[in-house]
């Protein structure tokens, strides 16, 4: 594949922007969490692009992929905790709309 | 035996014990507090006796590495000089009496109160005992917090306003000082002074270029001026004094304000003599103006605690005036006046506190003819008033006299202005005394007032005795501080010699050179 690096980065930027849009516009907590996953994936893509560029001269550097792996692990954690909280909140308010959780002290 | 760390942290230890003791009997808690403060007082007095006043260097020093800021090392360093020894002793002596007075006006949340009281003592002693700039700043802030709670929890009806005002004012000062501290440390570090030791920094700062000195001096001086408080930063004091419980007022007047004047002397003049020489006329004017201004304010008050607070403004004007006269007599008087003001204003607050506990009114016109039913109270009150107005033979006179003569040597005009304070002082305090004690009894509640009880006499009598003793033998105190003050005057004079006569030097300094 000889796609230039900037195209990968551009794709990552577009995905990230879509994630941001979802994060800010949606009320459904689950969708908000999904938007966050989307942003994390965009980040992963930039790491992949960078790693490819650095390793392309022959000397393979694995720092990028390792970081991606960690991010995936953390994303999993985040999703798990987030969803557990969603369930907990749902039990309390019978909804997962952000509007219901406007006040921090509630 | 003469261990500054022990003296400083003993109250904190006491606070810990009081806080954690499972015993819920208030008397036990008060007893522990009284015991701890008394032990500190004994240690303080023995420290005072062991101090060699002829030396300028710090004594009883202790030093341990603490941490590093970049390349600069910060030490836990304690030590006292001739100025701080007096204030440490004053603090140590005053606190048992404050503790003893607390049963009268602290009836709820006693444990908390005692804990704050003891922590406060550690903070105040630490301020005076620290020989490292960072440590000093640390204690400075530590001493701020307990009063915030004492004022806010046990204060009068407008305590929240007073508390917030007090806190914001002092915090503003503290932050300014923090800036100056950081600037000082970093600039000194740039010159290779890699320690925050006050003595080392003083050596660096007093030789620093005038412009650097000026800004650093301004930072420190404004911070301390707020604490003193000098006009126009004085308005927090009246509210804080008025709303504070008796013990809070006593500590505030007795010790906390002295932190400001102590700072001005030690850090303002001591560290930046060149800047201080240039700023001296301004500070002298502020001091002299403060004397008259505070007195006029006091004359117009109808609230006794507010009146005493305004008299503090007036008295501290003397301290600042004498200090910036930069003469032997002025400085000696200034240091002595710090002690005197602590004792006599503390006495006034303690005595009025005793009356307030009986009648729960601060308005002077609610009283009248009290002397007939409370002769002992009247005696001690008049004694305290006389000490405060500077009657010869009592403590106030010596300080005032030295300040005035010291000021007269540099500025006869300002001395004349300040002397009017002697008249005004008599006017407002005696007028208040007359309205409080003399005349016919105007309120029926006054008729049933009980005279001071044994506990209250035990609080005020020793302090009165101390006032008398200082008035008769001020030499004992002055001797302790003479070494340090002589060195200070020497430094100021040396600076005058080296200062270029010209653009930034005021005419007075030129005279000094001549």
């Amino acid at each position: 594949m000889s796609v230039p690096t900037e195209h990968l980065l551009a794709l990552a930027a577009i995905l990230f922007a879509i994630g941001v849009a979802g994060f800010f516009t949606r009320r459904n907590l689950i969708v908000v969490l999904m938007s966050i996953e989307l942003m994390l994936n965009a980040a992963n893509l930039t790491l992949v692009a960078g790693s490819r560029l650095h390793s392309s001269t022959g000397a393979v550097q694995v720092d990028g992929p390792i970081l991606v792996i960690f991010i995936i692990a953390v994303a999993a954690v985040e999703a798990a905790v987030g969803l557990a909280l969603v369930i907990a909140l749902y039990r309390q308010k019978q909804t997962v709309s952000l509007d219901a959780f406007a006040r921090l002290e509630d | 035996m003469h261990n500054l760390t022990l003296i400083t942290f003993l109250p904190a230890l006491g606070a810990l014990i009081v806080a954690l003791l499972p015993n819920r009997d208030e008397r036990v808690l008060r007893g522990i507090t009284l015991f701890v403060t008394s032990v500190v007082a004994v240690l303080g007095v023995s420290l005072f006796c062991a101090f060699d006043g002829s030396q300028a260097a710090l004594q009883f020093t202790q030093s341990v590495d603490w941490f590093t800021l970049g390349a600069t090392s910060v030490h836990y360093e304690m030590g006292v000089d001739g100025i701080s020894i007096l204030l440490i002793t004053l603090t140590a002596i005053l606190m048992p009496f404050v503790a003893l007075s607390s049963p009268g006006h602290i009836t709820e949340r006693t444990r908390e109160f005692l804990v704050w009281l003891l922590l406060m003592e550690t903070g105040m002693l630490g301020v005076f005992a620290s020989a490292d700039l960072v440590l000093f700043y640390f204690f400075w802030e530590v001493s701020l917090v307990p009063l915030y709670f004492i004022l806010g929890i046990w204060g009068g009806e407008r305590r929240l306003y007073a508390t917030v005002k007090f806190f914001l004012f002092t915090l503003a000062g503290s932050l300014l000082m923090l800036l100056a501290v950081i600037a000082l440390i970093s600039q000194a570090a740039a010159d290779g002074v890699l320690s925050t030791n006050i003595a080392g920094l003083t050596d660096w700062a007093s030789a620093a270029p005038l412009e650097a000195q000026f800004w650093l001096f301004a930072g420190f001086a404004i911070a301390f001026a707020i604490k003193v408080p000098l006009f126009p930063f004085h308005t927090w004091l009246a509210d804080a004094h008025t709303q504070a419980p008796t013990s809070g007022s006593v500590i505030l007047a007795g010790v906390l304000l002295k932190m400001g004047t102590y700072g001005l002397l030690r850090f303002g003049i001591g560290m930046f003599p060149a800047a201080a020489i240039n700023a001296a006329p301004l500070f002298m004017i502020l001091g002299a103006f403060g004397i008259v201004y505070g007195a006029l304010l006091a004359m117009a008050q109808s609230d006794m605690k507010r009146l005493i607070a305004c008299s503090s403004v007036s008295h501290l004007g003397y301290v600042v005036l004498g200090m910036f006269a930069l003469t032997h007599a002025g400085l000696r008087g200034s240091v002595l006046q710090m002690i005197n003001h602590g004792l006599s204003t503390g006495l006034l607050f303690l005595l009025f506190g005793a009356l307030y506990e009986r009648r729960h009114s601060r308005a002077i016109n609610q009283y009248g003819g009290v002397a007939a039913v409370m002769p002992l109270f009247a005696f001690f009150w008049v004694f305290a008033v006389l000490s405060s107005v500077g009657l010869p033979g009592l403590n106030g006179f010596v300080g005032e006299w030295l300040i005035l003569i010291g000021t007269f040597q540099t500025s006869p005009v300002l001395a004349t202005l300040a002397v009017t304070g002697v008249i005004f002082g008599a006017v407002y305090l005696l007028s208040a005394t007359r309205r409080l004690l003399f005349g016919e009894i105007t309120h029926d509640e006054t008729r049933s007032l009980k005279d001071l009880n044994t506990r209250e006499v035990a609080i005020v009598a020793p302090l009165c005795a101390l006032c008398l003793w200082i008035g008769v033998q001020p030499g004992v105190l002055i001797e302790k501080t003479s070494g340090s003050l002589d060195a200070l005057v020497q430094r100021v004079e040396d600076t005058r010699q080296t200062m270029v006569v010209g653009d930034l030097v005021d005419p007075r300094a030129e005279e000094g050179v001549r």
Partner: protein
Amino acid sequence: MVNLLFYAAALVAVLTAAGVVLARNPVVSVVSLLSCFGSLAVIYLLAGFQFLAAIQILVYGGAIMVLFLFVVMLLNLGGLSPEAEDRDDPLFHDRRRSAGGLAVAVALGSASLIGILRGARHLTEPTNGFVLPAEGYDALPALAEAMFTRYSLPFEAASVLLLATTVGVMVLAKRQRSAPPAGEERP
């Protein structure tokens, strides 16, 4: 050819991502996201990261998305009341916030794009194309070696994190189940 495959996958990824955000029904969102991740896995593979592609499918597709789907199902198809669903229209309800969110998104996205495009000329792309080792850029031996030597500490931290999460999530769920009625009664 390979390049074309990339652009196709990229297009799918963008479209499905947009679907995630735009779909009213959370189930649709979940499915869109799954497809998005799938196309990203393809891109990884194309770029020479076989292992990452595998992980992407396994962890994201297999674990995380299933979890999402599970929750969506558990909460009664998204857990939003019909009115709330109406309000959850990303574009047309509460225009102010939507506009703000979109503006931020567009601004961030365009900033990134502009930055990327302007910065592209500074990238030193290999003149004679990318040399792709047979085992890819993320050959497992190298990866494993780095993971257990240089990155051993983060690795352990991650494992601790995972453990803590496991416990934490269980506690969260458990506390809810045995929570006193008082908590439930709160409005």
